[in-house]
């Protein structure tokens, strides 16, 4: 290993550097070259703009993003607006266990639990609100969820006209087809599956029932529910959990 510290000295200026004029020209040449390199493609950009079009991203050398016509491409870990995931039968995966509410450092999640008519699901959120003005978008709720029920999207355009509309409830938070459709924000931050070799995130469907067949049988026996279309719409006698 080389010496720990390297002592730097102030560069000595040459005669030409001291009289400065040559240096001015050299400096101007350098900045001017940047200008031209940026300007020429920009002229092309302007030509596009004349016809109301965006230039292809590859044709520009300046990194400026033409927001809002053009938006930044975020990674699929981006921590934006939350969504509540649904089961295959269209009910919310959330079982109102209060884990995300507890893990939240900003104290922005408010849950009220109720008893779900499907016995296997046991609980569901009667109220699930996220105050997006308090939220710091840390993603701890996603990490804390034991049911893979809360994810985040890449939607970062969160602006509101009043504080009340910044509190998102179940209707706003429930995943919608538009979230993942073409042109939609797409999924962002989601549970990290760690070093587990089993499956990658996104492909995995947690299904407690499949792993606990006895429970499944018991449910089928006790709780002969019709095909679950009704539960989310009219949950009967929702009792808040103690």
């Amino acid at each position, binding site marked *: 290993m080389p010496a720990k510290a*390297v002592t730097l000295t*102030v560069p000595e200026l040459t005669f030409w550097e001291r009289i400065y004029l040559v240096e001015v020209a050299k*400096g101007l040449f350098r900045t001017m070259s940047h200008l031209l390199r940026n300007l020429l493609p920009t002229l092309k950009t302007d030509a596009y703009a004349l016809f109301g079009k965006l230039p292809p991203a590859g044709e520009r050398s300046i990194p400026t993003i033409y927001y809002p016509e053009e938006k930044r491409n975020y990674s699929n870990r981006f921590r934006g607006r939350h969504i509540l995931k649904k089961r295959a039968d269209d009910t919310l995966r959330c079982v109102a266990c209060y884990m995300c509410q507890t893990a939240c450092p900003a104290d922005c999640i408010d849950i009220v639990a109720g008893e779900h008519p499907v016995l296997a699901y046991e609980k569901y959120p009667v109220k699930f609100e996220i105050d997006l003005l308090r939220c710091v978008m840390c*993603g701890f709720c996603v990490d804390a969820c*034991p049911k893979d029920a809360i994810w985040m999207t890449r939607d970062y355009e969160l602006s509101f006209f009043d504080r009340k509309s910044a509190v998102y409830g179940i209707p706003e938070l429930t995943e919608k087809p538009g979230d993942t459709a073409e042109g939609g924000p797409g999924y*962002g931050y989601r549970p990290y599956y*760690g070093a*587990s070799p089993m499956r990658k995130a996104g492909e*995995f469907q947690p299904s407690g029932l499949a*792993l606990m067949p006895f429970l499944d049988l018991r449910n089928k026996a006790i709780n002969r529910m019709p095909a679950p279309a009704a539960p989310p719409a009219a949950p009967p006698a929702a009792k808040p959990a103690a």
Partner: protein
Amino acid sequence: MSTDAPVSTVSFAPVLERKFAGRARPEASGRGDVPTISVDPASLHDVALFLRDDPSTRFDLLLDVASIDRSKLPAEQLPRDGKRFQASYILYSTRRNEHLRVKAAVPEARPSLPSLVDVWPAANWFEREAWDLMGIDFENHPNQKRLLTHNGFVGHALRKDYEAGQRWLCTEEDILQTDLASKTETAEDAFETMTLNFGPSHPATHGTLRAVFRLDGETIVAAEGECGYLHRCFEKMSESHTYSQVIPYTDRLNYCSPMINGNGYARAVEQMLGVEIPPRARAVRVILSEFSRIMDHLVCIAANLVDIGALTNFWFLFQAREEIYGLLEACCGARLTSSYARIGGLSNDVPENFVEWSRRLLVEVKKQVDEVDRLVSRNGIAMKRLRGTGLVTKENAIAWGFTGPCLRASGVPYDLRKDKPYDGYETYDFDIPVMNDGDNYSRYYVRMEEMRQSARIIEQGLSRLPSGPVNSDDYRVVLPPKEMVYNEMEGLIYHFKLVFEGIQVPAGEIYSSTEGANGELGYSIVSDGSGRPYRIKVRPPCFPLFAAFEKMVVGGMVSDAVATLGLLNIIAGELDR
């Protein structure tokens, strides 16, 4: 988690015993903690002089004064002496490369300690802070008044019986009182001197800082700095959050290099727990910390060049920073509020194209840095503006508690990455640039070279990035893999325990320091054995820098003060916490 019993690691214990028998004694320090001695308050001043001057000690650099209110500790940890408050002075010896904590406890009835400003001038603001937030009175302190809270504030916020959520009105009179401004009218030499207010919202302060200058013509004859405008109660908030929940708060400390803060915090808690993180996590932390360091220096230099009139360079450097932000976002999901570190590892593995992406970025960063180097480093105007201004001698830099690039620009080669290597820095081949002039140009030039050295570290890290997991498999600390949580009872129980109770950190305390972009970023954490930190004290590198600002600018011009402030790189987020 290993359970090695705490032992005393004080190297000069016999000398201490001979000189101060009974009044200062070594204490056992826990795993990973710095050596500790405990001092009787009455002899604190004598011990301090001994620690500074004795050849066997030579603790010349005062890093931090952490205060703690011990009244709410669990019964078995309550201090036997019954003294409620305790101040911990964190010292460092630049000659012997050793840290030391000096503890002095004071009773509630008379919480008073001798001021150590005359021993270590850096103590000035640290003691003011301890008085402001904990109410420890420092006798003979030259300027003991509120620092982080305003003058209308009642009580001492970090005391355990201070109820959070109280609001105190700050009237206009409370804001404007600085000694300097009020004395102007009455002083003998008031003729032709004027008071100039600078900040808190001024384009050249780059943050909510305030300084008041007293000017004779355009020369500054006296100056006073004021901070606290961005105080967000970080330390108070941490006490009501679990260890994991503190991580998002650390992002907001130095917001120009958030990754370093989070890594430093996570490492401090890991040291308390005795948890080892996997090699891949260590390498990724190093790589991203170095990227953050580059970003921080880019911001510092770019903004400062704007202040002294070289606007173009701002865009060159910010383009590089912009690209780095893209990489950080792909790793952690946010450009600035990264929250990437977790206690025991990282929140996610790095993306698949991480290595190629980083390599591509390094080329870009080096290109932009070289461009600015060519434009500025040998530029006559820049040299005239920066050379010889904001001078700090080697002795002053140490006395004022400087660390990081500003200390190295004054000729002291102190860098924790070399002196107290962590995260495997000892295996990387890099140099510590040092300059002896101690002026603004040195601070600029050292930073430029540091960016190149950081790039070297990143290249080495990328070329031998280990594969494997990025999280420890100790599920008492790290959330278990989701497969386990979804499918196994055991995993679910660990998960529940971690979320609801937090990581159970064994009782004890630690001072853990990281080389932040601005200097030594220290976390003093006291745990009472529960899931929430009992007390966290951050040692922000900017704090002593800004405290010294008011001394550095005297005798210079206002425009020199602007250049000085920019190259000290004061980040209000970590200054005020």
